[in-house]
């Protein structure tokens, strides 16, 4: 849940460096830069080693044909050209967007509902908050296997329960038509707690006076929610949407474990290309296409936020 930090960290670091030196002494500038560097190193070194260098490496790889077992072979932009004309690329992006379209509204609505519920004074509030957060810190492998079991078409609890009320349940993850809904369901369930916590913090930052004033003016509960809570919650909503979108584009674990070959998103496609089909160059190119796509979407979001995000 920390992807923006990894990208924003260097930015703030770079900005911090040219800030006015605190020390007025001679040679203070150099000393100051040295001090900053020492503090930055612990995060800058792993960042270089595990993020920047591999990223550049994958850019280089994307210009080659490489099956991992023989030498790389230069193909220029050939991989990109092939990807853009391959219907599988479109399918993978389409499925990723399908995932986001199902997951985002579900996790937001669910998280908001929980946050509103648990924002009220009630017994066992802290305990419930803790319980809803548990799935967030659970490994995806565990959660995916559990949902796979729950949604097992033959012996799962869900189809058993559906059977009790006379509904014959679908094939869930064994059926390509139902595999994505299964994954969406499990994903929304797992991330509910995360969205809840962020929105809960947002709710508590809304001054009580606004609500009280509206109450005195005779505003209904719905009006107060629609006109006060939602607008003032918009910075938290924005954060949740940005994070969830990026997570959505990177969805992998649950799709791979739950749906196997029945649902292919961009990242599972990247994995298959590299490790199943020995086409690491093509996979790197697809990674960069995904990067470009996420970059554009995020830029659009940041521009659009001016229209709908209210601060204070």
């Amino acid at each position, binding site marked *: 849940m920390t992807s923006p930090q990894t*990208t924003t960290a260097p930015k703030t670091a770079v900005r911090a460096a040219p800030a006015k030196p605190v020390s007025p002494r001679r040679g203070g500038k150099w000393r100051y830069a040295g001090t900053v560097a020492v503090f930055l190193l612990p995060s800058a070194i792993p960042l270089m080693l*595990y993020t920047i260098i591999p990223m550049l*490496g*994958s850019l280089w790889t994307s210009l080659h044909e490489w*099956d991992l077992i023989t030498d790389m072979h230069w193909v220029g932009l050939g991989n990109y050209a092939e990807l853009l004309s391959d219907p599988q690329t479109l399918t993978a992006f389409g499925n990723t967007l399908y995932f986001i379209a199902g997951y985002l509204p579900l996790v937001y609505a669910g998280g908001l509902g929980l946050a509103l519920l648990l924002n009220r004074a009630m017994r066992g509030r802290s305990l419930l908050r803790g319980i809803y957060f548990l799935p967030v810190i659970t490994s995806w492998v565990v959660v995916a296997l559990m949902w796979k079991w729950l949604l097992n078409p033959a012996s799962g609890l869900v189809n058993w329960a559906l059977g009790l009320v006379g509904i014959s349940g679908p094939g869930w993850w064994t059926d390509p038509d139902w595999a994505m809904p299964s994954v969406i369901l499990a994903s929304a369930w797992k991330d509910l707690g995360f969205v809840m916590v962020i929105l809960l913090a947002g709710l508590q930052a809304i001054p009580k006076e606004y609500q009280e004033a509206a109450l005195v003016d005779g505003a209904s509960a719905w009006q107060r929610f629609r006109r006060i809570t939602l607008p003032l919650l918009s910075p938290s909503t924005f954060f949740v949407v940005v994070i969830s979108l990026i997570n959505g584009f990177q969805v992998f674990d649950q799709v791979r474990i739950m749906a196997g070959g029945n649902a292919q998103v961009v990242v599972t496609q990247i994995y298959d290309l590299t*490790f*199943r089909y020995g086409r690491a160059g093509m996979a*790197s190119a697809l990674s960069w296409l995904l990067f470009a796509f996420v970059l554009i979407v995020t830029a659009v979001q940041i521009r659009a936020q001016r229209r709908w995000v209210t601060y204070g």
Partner: protein
Amino acid sequence: MSRKIMTTLVATALLATACSQGSATKAPTGEGGKTTLRYFTFSAAPDHVKDLDAITAAFEKANPTIDVVVETAPYDQYFTKLQTSIAGGTAPDTFELNYENFVTYAGGGSLLDLGTVAGDGDSSAYAAESLNSFKHDGKQYALPASFSTVVLFYNKDLFEKAGIEPPTADWTWADEQAAAEKLTDKKAKVYGDYQPVQFFEFYKTLKQTGGEFLAADGKKSAFNSPAGVKAATWLVSKVGKTMPTEAEIGGTADYDTNLFKSGKLAMWHNGIWQFAGLKDVPFEWDVVVEPGDSAKASAVFHNAVAASATTKNGKAAYAWAKFLSSSDVAANTRIASSWELPPVSDQQLLAGYLKDPKPANRQAVFDSLKSIALPPVIKRQQEMQDAVTKELTEAAAGRKSVDEALKSAAAKVDALLG
């Protein structure tokens, strides 16, 4: 799940490399001039680790300066690990390869030409056709170590109870189908037949009905034909009738093995590597050569030992590969434990395989070799296998007609060949 995607990819590669590095460093380094030789295999675990240990021990006794370190991985992870270790420069000295993947590796230059380290190595111990399967551009890049075939397993008790004559070598698909229908009892959850709907079964059944998978020049697919439709229909029509559906299987690992072992499966298309695991089941079972349609054709899986092009111990690698593939100790160990078959030319040695009383009709294994179907091999092998399996699965689930499935499978395979 939340880390930047491109880093995930490269980090995974790094991680995988780091892992194989880990297992490399785990290996004890040579003491007193000893050579440590790594061997990576998919066919030993879990049933035959001890048998491999016995072969290793005998080899080390005969070659006291060489220390063989065995690393195993399940088949579905094996090639991913092998690839990443080669890419990361930590390839094992020697490793197992199957026939389908041999071409990719040999053509890629990652295998050591064993002719350069063999000296005046005598190859008469090997069955000639087996040895030739692992030649590429006239060079011996791997030594055949084992082979296995697919036969029809059947539960004798279930046949007896239903009052049906057990299968014979003369059976055709029609006989199998008639028996399967009678043996299936959905209420008791007993199924008459189990044959996976996938690439390997398809290319074989195609041959059983007289079709070809690839055109003679190997440049185009040839399975979208009347024979192809017949073969695919044969596989697909079992699902939901005499065989459980995908939803019923529910992705359970080893579903078919457990179904047969629990006595609820009458006929089972599977490989002779299952013999060892079926020793103690509480019912009578036997095997027979698979029924054909217009012809007999049995699938053969062929595994070999290769050495990495980057190994520093070429001579030791060759010695081990040769020992593992053709020594009497290795051959006898394989035969005694029913761990596939050694590709040796010595018929005397192979005769020992027939002495084991279970299954009674072991002769079927040798009979199945009389008309074999080798898998079609192309450069983009895995993609072809996946494409064919996927389309057949669509047809089995009733989401596509067999005609449509074959048409799009053929288009995909043609694209891979193009």
